[in-house]
């Protein structure tokens, strides 16, 4: 059988050019696959494609190089070389086939893996978004709550700090855990650091029993309401607080803190006491005036007739001595009556501009020797350029003398009396303060010390009119006399005299006795 003869040139050129093109194109594919894998490194499909392209490039090289080598070796008459290389070329080519096919068959596995990764990624993203959302919500919630809390805290802090009453928190031991500014001011403290955590309420109470009772009531009832308590400030001044408090317990019923509010009622109590005192003394003054006037006239008659009888009797006789005794006691009675009239402001006063310091110096000089004998030192701190007041100087001296004598009597043995003067331009008064470190005045006596005939001394040792007379004189000068006392530690009498006297310089005797 014969046939047509055809040139194999197309085959030859197609083989060489095709092999070269395939090598080139496959490497281009590898290059794109590398860039693709780099664009999204986490995508395993792109990694798979890269491996597939690498395998195909390997296949292209093994096959293309083999084909080109064959063509050129045969062309250069190197058949022997080709014959020896051929098995290797063919073998490598076959292996490349298998490798490409093997890599290709991993597609489904890689795809499933990718789906799993994508699902995980999606789930992670969803979870992340959810977490972000929750976080945002949480942040918003926290911000909202914080703002609310801040507003609430600010509101209660304003109430706490702005309150004019003392608001405090005590720990379970009764120590101060917190206190507002007003509380610090009431108790005479400046810095909360020196107060909170260092002081306890018990230390401020005037009476330990009173504190114990308060705590016992708090522990048993859980609260106390409007309990009047007596406390001492930092400087020792006595104050009265109206205290309401509650105890706070934990889940086990154990008291963990006390919270309370206290109102300073010292001024109110003081005022009430003064009003009561003034009313009482006004009543007593009225009675005293009546009695004094009724007694004064018979006493004058009795004294006159006694003196007439004494003229006719020789001195040294029995009757003369008896009449002298009558005269002495009648004069005593008259002195008492005069004192009563002074208390009742019925005595004549001669007012003029008086230097209070000078009056005090005279009185201190007069009593100085006697006080020295009693081992009592007198310390005077008189304000220089003290404003003069309109007053009856003799009566003022009597007041100062009475108060000094009263301080002397409050001391058994040696002691110290301090006399201080000061002007208060704000209130337009001059203040004279007598303080001693004597025995003090018991609380039950403090309301009675200005009462006429009230005396703690044994009968016969005093009339009990000294402070009453002083009170009457000071009232007559439109002034005030006040007392503060701490039993066992001493007392302080404060006399306030107005700088400007509006009334007539010489006041007429009044009929109604002392008034407030």
């Amino acid at each position: 059988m014969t046939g047509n003869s055809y040139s194999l040139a197309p085959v030859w050129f197609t083989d060489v050019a095709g092999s070269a093109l395939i090598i080139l194109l496959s490497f281009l594919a590898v290059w794109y696959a590398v860039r693709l894998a780099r664009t999204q490194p986490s995508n395993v499909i792109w990694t798979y494609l890269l491996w597939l392209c690498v395998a195909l490039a390997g296949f292209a090289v093994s096959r293309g190089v083999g084909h080109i080598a064959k063509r050129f070796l045969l062309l250069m008459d190197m058949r022997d070389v080709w014959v020896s290389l051929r098995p290797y070329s063919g073998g490598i080519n076959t292996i490349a086939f298998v490798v490409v096919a093997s890599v290709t068959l991993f597609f489904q596995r890689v795809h499933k893996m990718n789906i799993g990764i994508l699902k995980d990624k999606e789930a992670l993203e969803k979870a992340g978004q959810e977490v972000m959302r929750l976080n945002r919500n949480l942040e918003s919630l926290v911000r909202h709550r914080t703002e609310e809390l801040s507003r609430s805290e600010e509101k209660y802090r304003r109430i706490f700090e702005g309150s004019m009453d003392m608001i405090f928190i005590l720990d379970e031991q009764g120590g101060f855990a917190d206190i507002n500014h007003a509380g610090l001011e009431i108790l005479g403290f400046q810095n909360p650091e020196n107060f909170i955590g260092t002081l306890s309420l018990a230390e401020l109470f005037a009476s330990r029993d009173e504190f114990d009772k308060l705590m016992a009531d708090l522990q048993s009832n859980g609260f106390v309401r409007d309990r009047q308590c007596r406390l001492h400030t930092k400087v020792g001044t006595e104050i009265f607080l109206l205290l309401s408090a509650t105890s706070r317990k934990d889940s086990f019923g154990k008291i963990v803190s006390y919270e309370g509010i206290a109102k300073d009622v010292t001024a109110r109590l003081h005022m009430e006491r003064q009003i009561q005192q003034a009313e009482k003394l006004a009543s007593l003054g009225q009675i005293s005036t009546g009695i004094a006037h009724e007694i004064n006239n018979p006493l004058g008659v009795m004294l006159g007739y006694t003196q007439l009888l004494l003229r006719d009797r020789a001195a040294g006789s029995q009757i003369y001595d008896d009449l002298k005794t009558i005269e002495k006691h009648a004069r005593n009675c008259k002195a008492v009556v005069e004192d009563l009239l002074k208390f009742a402001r019925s005595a004549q006063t001669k007012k003029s501009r008086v230097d209070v310091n000078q009056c005090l110096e005279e009185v201190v000089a007069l009593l100085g020797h006697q006080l020295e004998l009693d081992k009592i030192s007198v310390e005077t701190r008189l304000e220089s350029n003290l404003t003069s007041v309109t007053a009856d100087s003799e009566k003022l001296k009597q007041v100062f003398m009475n108060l000094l004598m009263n301080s002397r009597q409050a001391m058994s043995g040696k002691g110290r009396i301090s006399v201080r003067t000061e002007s208060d331009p704000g209130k337009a008064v001059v203040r004279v303060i007598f303080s001693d470190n004597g025995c003090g005045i018991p609380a039950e006596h403090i309301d009675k010390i200005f009462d006429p005939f009230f005396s703690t001394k044994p009968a016969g040792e005093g009339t009990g009119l000294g402070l009453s007379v002083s009170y009457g004189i000071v009232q007559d000068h439109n002034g005030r006399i006040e007392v503060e006392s701490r039993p066992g530690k001493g007392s302080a009498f404060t006399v306030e005299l107005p700088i400007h006297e509006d009334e007539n310089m010489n006041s007429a005797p009044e009929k109604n006795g002392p008034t407030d």
Partner: protein
Amino acid sequence: MVIRSKIGFVLILAYIFCSPTAATAFQSHPAPEGLYVHQLAHWFFILAMVMLAYWLQVNSFTREKGWRLIQVSCILLILWNILAFTGHWVEEMIPNTVISGEPDWTQRIVVDSVWTGLYYAFKLDHLMQVPAVICLLLGIRSLYKHAAREEQIGDR
């Protein structure tokens, strides 16, 4: 007793190693095996490409242009493999005398039967393989561009 048994064991081993005979444990692999392995490799390649084209289809990868081109590349490679496999088979069928001349582009072939005609045609298999690789390249390039665009959008 123990030493005596050890000496005996060593002597037996020495006898075995010192008395070799013809080795018949392995089977010889003559030349046709290479062709058969190569042909089987073509089938393996076909199988892999069929599977890939199928998976791309069923997993809806072909909705993207890049993967569609890769699928086309798979189909072209399948066809090329068939051509190559058939070409190898046909090459075995035709006598060497139909090709004459020096082994260069001046060679000629006498097409005296269907087999030689087919042989000539199958020898131009690169006309199938080159487009297959071009499709693969274009497919990957398309995927790369798409991915790069997505990344850019993502970055914005």
